């Protein structure tokens, strides 16, 4: 990955709030990241950590109200996606930015054939006629490894298995040669053997097409296998961000360290007892004025309750939002 390359997507200080009866829920708090051409950025976090909401806010996919994308900039293709009109946004979505959702059954329309659904973005965004679109749709199904593609175009989603449906979703997302593909837990609903097939397919596609990918998951194992860089989210914030090898060998944030310890392994030493993270994730009602992880953290001290830590650069493209310096084993200077 050329280090100096201009990012295809650059997000700065994104903040999204949901207005609810219980008060304002701060789902995304000052999230910043950038995506370089051809790179795969993994986003990990538990449910409710804000990973999906972040991606949906930057494409304007959240219904407002209750959602309110309060501030931030999302630079893509020389434009700020938070400021452009609906029409431009529509041409970006499904065009230059493709999206693959978690559940392939609910994101495909059951009453249209798969062919019609793949042809839709081709006709809308690329201005193809029916014949061209059909030929391209067949090509796409072949690309994602669906056998007998020509005949399968006339099948309905329910005639496909879970893994095959997810391949169809990927084909739709790839239809307009996107520069960025956002995949939101694309393998979570699938079985391990099918997940392995999809991961393998994704590696091939990246080699062939060279697009940049944002891969959202809660499975650190998946991230270890495919990502170039990883962003760990907790309580609506980025708590750690590092190249993949660096993150796994040298985790700096207490949450990342705890997370790596809680997963049992299928090889190597078997722990007699699993390490657990005590407590529950934060509720995120009200603006974050302290570290969201402090109540479950084993190195928290008084400053963590008084201030929300910024992301400290720890070198090698690695940063962590923690007042405690894991390298020196002491609190950072105030």
């Amino acid at each position, binding site marked *: 990955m050329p280090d100096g390359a201009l990012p295809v997507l650059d997000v700065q200080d994104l903040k999204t709030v949901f207005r609810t009866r219980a008060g304002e829920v701060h789902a995304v708090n000052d999230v910043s990241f950038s995506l370089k051409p051809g790179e795969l950025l993994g986003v990990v976090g538990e449910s409710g950590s804000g990973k999906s909401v972040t991606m949906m806010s930057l494409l304007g996919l959240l219904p407002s109200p209750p959602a309110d994308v309060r501030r931030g900039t999302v630079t893509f293709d020389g434009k700020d996606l938070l400021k452009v009109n609906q029409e431009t946004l529509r041409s970006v979505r499904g065009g230059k930015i493709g999206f693959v959702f978690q559940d392939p059954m609910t994101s495909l329309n059951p009453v249209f054939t798969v062919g019609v659904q793949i042809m839709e973005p081709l006709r809308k965004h690329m201005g193809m006629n029916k014949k061209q679109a059909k030929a391209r749709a067949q090509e796409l199904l072949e690309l994602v490894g669906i056998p007998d593609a020509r005949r399968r175009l006339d099948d309905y989603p329910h005639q496909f*298995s879970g893994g095959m449906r997810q391949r169809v979703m990927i084909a739709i997302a790839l239809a307009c040669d996107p520069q960025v593909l956002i995949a939101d837990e694309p393998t979570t609903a699938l079985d391990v053997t099918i997940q392995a097939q999809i991961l393998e397919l994704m590696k091939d596609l990246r080699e062939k097409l060279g697009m940049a990918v944002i891969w959202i998951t809660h499975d650190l194992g998946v991230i270890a*296998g495919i990502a170039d860089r990883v962003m760990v989210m907790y309580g609506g914030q980025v708590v750690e961000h590092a190249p993949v090898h660096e993150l796994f060998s040298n985790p700096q944030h207490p949450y990342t360290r705890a997370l790596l310890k*809680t997963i049992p392994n299928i090889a190597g030493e078997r722990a007699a007892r699993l390490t657990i993270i005590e407590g529950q994730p934060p509720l995120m009602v009200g603006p974050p004025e302290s570290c969201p992880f402090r109540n479950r953290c084993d190195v928290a001290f008084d400053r963590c309750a008084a201030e929300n830590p910024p992301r400290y650069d720890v070198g090698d493209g690695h940063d962590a939002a923690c007042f405690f310096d894991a390298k020196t084993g002491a609190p950072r200077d105030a």
Partner: protein
Amino acid sequence: MLDQGPKPLVSVNDLKMHFPIFAGLFRRRVGEVKAVDGVSFDVMEGETLGLVGESGCGKSTCGRAVLRLYDITSGTIEIDGREIGDTPQTDLREMRPTMQMVFQDPQASLNPRMTVEDIIKEPLDEHTKLTDAEKRAKVGELMDAVGLNRRFAKRYPHAFSGGQRQRIGIARALALNPKFIVCDEPIAALDVSIQAQVVNLLEDLQEQFGLTYLFISHDLSMVRHIATRVAVMYLGKVVELAPREALYAEPLHPYTKALLSAVPEPDPSLARKTERIILKGDVPSPSNPPQGCNFCTRCPSVMDICKQDEPAYREVSPGRFTACHLYNDFDNTADQTAGAEANKSVNKEKTQ
């Protein structure tokens, strides 16, 4: 716990659970879904038997059938010295306290209109003659045991998080001092950091109350942690059953190998080095399983015999059971190295 001279608490023999398919104008029976098709295993007293497999392989149906939540098609189930395979449902009631279940989705398995106290108390109302005060004291004890605050007894399930709700479900299962609990994917709906809490709780309770678990899961790494022995299911049949260490170190059945190799490795350097066995295609339909071995349509080391004869499920080395034609040369008396040799020959075939 293994040294106690293992005695089976649960013995399942040739269990079949077929669901009929009706079609046409007259709703005629046109076939059947063979969800569980001839499964045999023992669960020893005090152990955890892990039951793993992909979705649709019949593992949940198997768990429910063992507790006779279904009327089974055929086979025998012996729990705690009593045959319950053909017992009518009304006569099963008195057996229910010994065998309980923890369900996958704590959201769906708790009545939203009952308080936590009522939920945990319900089995006591049904099966015991305790006074109300005694029941309430028991509920308090149970809430302590699963790590729930007694003060929340009057709250409703919606006020609890997923992990806490699963604890309520566990407390309810424990209420009647059962010996045997079927845990049907108890952690699948929870976040990773909460999963570990629930698994540790299940282990503590096992030790405290001497429980025996049938732990159904698709998470192979979690099963490696909790199970004493592991059974692998594919399309309604157990294809391999072995002690935990042996199964993970040296899987015999090609399906087990593929399944283990598909588990993502949470270590980037290892994850990129390991050569994965990628299975082609999908699981065939259980209403129309292939001829011969059920796995022959996807097996990387398939032979001609696999497409004709169904492999017998048998012990290939002490404590290790598998149903695969690759191990036909090894009879019951084969020593433990047999598995290893067969393993080598499989690997050779793969590289060719």
